[in-house]
């Protein structure tokens, strides 16, 4: 048992070192070029995208549609609540690293309420009492620390990402406080709940995802554009493209400076 744990820790530090090396690449591409998209690995990314699309078509989409179609909405919500609650310790740590007092408070209150009166996280009691949702990750922590977005990446199975977000995922995966508090098999509940919740999301937003993956002329370019905009919006990052002005010159580069008065 202890040797297994020690091995895991060793593996974790190796992964961390790799992640930090990768992070070095982020700062190099701190500012994205004029069109808001920095994608030096496009050729490789497009191959991964084609692979992900095949996985989705053959496996994820049918499973997700079956899951959302057959599992009652209430049960689906229960799984989502459980997964969300298990993410709160990690949210707390990241809020702390971001010096986000409100986030720390929200994570604490949500985790305590949902774990107790929410029956171990199955019921989202905190939301019933009007406590806002709170979700963050180490990618956001890096953003708060001033690390640049890095390059756009599409990861096998996991989908669109950026260098910064990928490093964040790795760090979150190896530093989840729950993993230190729990032993197998409880320690795997988190991952399992996360995967099932993810499948539920794919099912619920089936039409949106289908429209991007299977109905657009270039699903790679659409995925990339929508992912980057959504992620920047979540982070509250200022982006030139939120303020394009077609009246200046509709044929012109959309990323021309556009001041908000």
């Amino acid at each position, binding site marked *: 048992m202890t040797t297994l744990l020690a091995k895991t820790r060793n593996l974790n530090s190796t992964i961390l070192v790799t992640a930090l090396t990768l992070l070095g690449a982020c700062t190099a591409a701190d500012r994205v070029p004029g069109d808001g998209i920095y994608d030096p690995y496009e050729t490789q990314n497009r191959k991964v995208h084609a692979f992900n699309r095949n996985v989705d078509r053959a496996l994820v989409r049918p499973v997700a549609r079956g899951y959302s179609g057959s599992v009652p909405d209430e049960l689906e919500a229960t799984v989502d609540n459980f997964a969300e609650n298990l993410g709160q310790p990690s949210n707390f740590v990241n809020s702390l690293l971001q010096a986000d007092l409100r986030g720390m408070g929200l994570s604490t209150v949500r985790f305590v309420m949902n774990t107790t009166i929410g029956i171990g996280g199955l019921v989202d009691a905190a939301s019933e009492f009007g406590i806002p949702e709170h979700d963050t990750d180490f990618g956001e922590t890096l953003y708060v620390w001033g690390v640049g977005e890095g390059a756009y990446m599409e990861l096998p199975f996991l989908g669109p990402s950026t260098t910064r977000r990928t490093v964040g995922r790795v760090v979150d995966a190896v530093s989840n406080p729950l993993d230190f508090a729990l032993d197998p098999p409880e320690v795997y509940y988190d991952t399992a709940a996360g995967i099932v919740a993810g499948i539920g999301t794919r099912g619920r937003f089936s039409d949106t995802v289908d429209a991007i993956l299977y109905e657009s002329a270039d699903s790679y370019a659409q995925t990339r554009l929508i992912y980057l905009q959504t992620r*920047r919006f979540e982070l509250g990052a200022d982006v030139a493209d939120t303020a394009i002005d*077609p009246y200046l010159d*509709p044929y012109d580069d959309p990323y021309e400076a556009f001041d908000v008065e």
Partner: protein
Amino acid sequence: MLNNPSRRAVLAGIITTATVPPAFALSEGDARALVDQLVGEINTVIASGKSESGMIRDFEKIFARYADVPIMARYALGVDGRRASNGQLRRFTDVFAGYIARKYGKRFREFIGGRIEVRSARSIRSGYEITTTAFLKGESPFEVTFLVSDRSGKRLFFNMFIEGVNLLLTERTEIGALLDQAGGDIDAMIDRLRRIG
């Protein structure tokens, strides 16, 4: 050499229109009112219980009435618009309106039982940015932003963002990809656009 008075008059005219704000300058209240009306009409269509094709027809009418379709279409066409003829531009604008109505109108059933509320407004260079919150059944509320301008001579919206996703940019990417697939042939792209969405 004599000063050409007509040329001078034209020049003065250009300067006047460029510097003097139009008599009906867009106010924040106007911009809000436009989005309120637009949201009201959308909510009515959602509540009408019509068939999908009926809703799409209604949405196309709403789009034509409330959106600056020509500027949106030209923006979506991007730099390739520079080499398009007037005829091609007209046809593209027409086909683009139908494409948008089909593409987004199809998604209207997700809005059934939902509502949109206008929240705040702020001034931007070409007009106003109106922020709204969409409340859909079984989903967390999310932000939808409309950009409104009177640069066309009428109060119209010219772009929208759904949780940070820019409609004009999304469509420019889509039209660009269609053009690439058509080998840069604008007419072929228009024909294809007529059939999709």
